């Protein structure tokens, strides 16, 4: 484990030099252990692909704590993982970049869409926007670079691809990912008692829905009556 400094109270622990699912599993397992054992000394802790960022509270013996933390061994994950089933409408109304991508990738739009939703993606971490999941390991056949000029506004719910990553814009935002569909489900609901609908470390499986179903789910979602279907999953 390499330790770097980020701020007066903040450190970055690099768990592995690789960026892959094993490295991310190790990272998330270690994060859980640190949180459980040292959580009271931390003002914040979160992970990215292969790193953990820990921010110590003021006035704690951070050097000594850090020393203990770096000696921890990442053990296999405790507790079970879940898959969230996320409906996506891949129709042309909501997928401004789908046809251009399909053409340049020598695929039919249907094939591209299928290759996108057939896979179960791990939530490596959340960043960029509240509840924006960083999903990786996109099928090689549908990997595609970011837009040269980012859009000033990408609509909430948009599902995008950037190289080997895919993700969901959870609020309207500027953004440069290639948009291939839209989900009617809100993953971030600030008005709710339970504002975060997804947890890093769990998994996402997209499934295609028609336009009618999209609007039906959208309405239920607006009324806070739509429940994301979840299943237990032992993970990769």
């Amino acid at each position, binding site marked *: 484990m390499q330790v770097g*400094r*980020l701020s007066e*109270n903040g450190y970055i622990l690099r768990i592995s030099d690789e960026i892959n699912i094993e490295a991310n599993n190790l990272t998330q397992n270690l994060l859980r252990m640190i949180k459980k054992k040292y959580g009271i000394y931390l003002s914040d802790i979160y992970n990215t692909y*292969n790193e953990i960022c820990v921010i110590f509270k003021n006035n704690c013996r951070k050097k000594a704590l850090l020393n203990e933390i770096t000696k921890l061994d990442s053990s296999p994950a405790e507790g079970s993982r879940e898959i969230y089933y996320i409906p996506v409408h891949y129709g042309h109304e909501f997928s401004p970049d789908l046809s251009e991508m399909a053409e340049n990738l020598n695929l039919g739009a249907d094939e591209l869409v299928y290759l996108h939703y057939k896979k179960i993606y791990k939530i490596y971490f959340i*960043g960029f926007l509240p509840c924006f999941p960083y999903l990786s390991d996109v099928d090689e056949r549908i990997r595609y670079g970011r837009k040269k000029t980012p859009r000033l506004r990408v609509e909430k719910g948009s599902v995008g691809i950037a190289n080997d990553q895919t993700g969901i814009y959870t609020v309207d935002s500027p953004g440069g990912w290639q948009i291939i569909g839209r989900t009617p489900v809100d993953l971030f609901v*600030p008005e709710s008692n339970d504002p975060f609908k997804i947890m890093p470390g769990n998994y996402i499986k997209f499934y295609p829905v028609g336009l009618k179903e999209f609007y039906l789910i959208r309405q239920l979602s607006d009324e806070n009556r739509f429940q994301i279907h979840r299943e237990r999953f032992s993970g990769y």
Partner: protein
Amino acid sequence: MKTDFRFTEKGFRGIKSMEWIYFHKPGFFTTIQGIGRSGYSEFGIPGGGSVDFLSSVISNYLSYSGCDNPVFEFTLEGPTIEFNFDSIFSITGANMHPKVNDLPVEMYKTLFVKKGDVLSFGKVSRGFRTYLSINSKLNIAKFLGSFSTYTNANYGGYRGRQIKAGDYLYYESASVGDKRIRKAKKDSVDDLLKAGNVLRIIEGPEYSAFESNSLKRFFNSEYSVSKKLNRMGIRLEGERLESSVTNISSSAVLPGIIQVPGDGLPIILLADCQTTGGYPRLGKIIDADMIVASQLKPIDRIVFKKIPYKTAERLSKRLRKHINKYI
């Protein structure tokens, strides 16, 4: 959240039992801020809160409010506000030439306002952000432990957005009573900015990825603040920097971090910055100098100076002690 929604509709203006303030003009960019949210980075929730946290804390001290009281943060130009109740208030941060009923009032001091008074502000002369603390309970709900507005995802503060002309904000109670006048002169933004805008930094994770010539240019030249600045960050103009890595895989960032995107021009991150970023992180402005950084406005010039972590930690401790005097 629901009740505040109902009462702020214009049609309820006639309700006499409620205390309110009314925004005749909203100012350039006015939001409710205060203490930020910490501990939710794993869900992509930024810390947020008042960009100039020291001025914000002092304003609550001067108005006899708790440090948790939500404050108004004005940017560049302040609003015009009508009060329908007597209250204690205070103004700190950048000088926007505050007036009550067209008569100038002092900043950094306990002030009193009467029912029917109009508090107005002009454009900022030095600095960028001004704080108004009103000693009454604002009728808004906390989100994740904080009143602060995050306009990018529409949460916190007043309906998750900036204040608009015609907004009524309601208060639950107002008690004035006899209060001694408090002052806090020596922390004025003018004095801080007069010091010469030297921002002290500590090394960031990718510091050594920058070429030594680039680093020389970075420390030996002046940068100016561009027009591209908001609560998330400040884009600088000046010498372009080169590093051996142009993109890193997304990694943690915090307010104060100086990241350098592909065009080589540094960006200073502020309170509402994202939790992760993909550009090399040259350094971080020390906590103690973030008060200066938070008051920078376009065309202001700055220079950077590197100091050891040990010194930064000591200065951070001193700043916290200083802040605690007002809590």
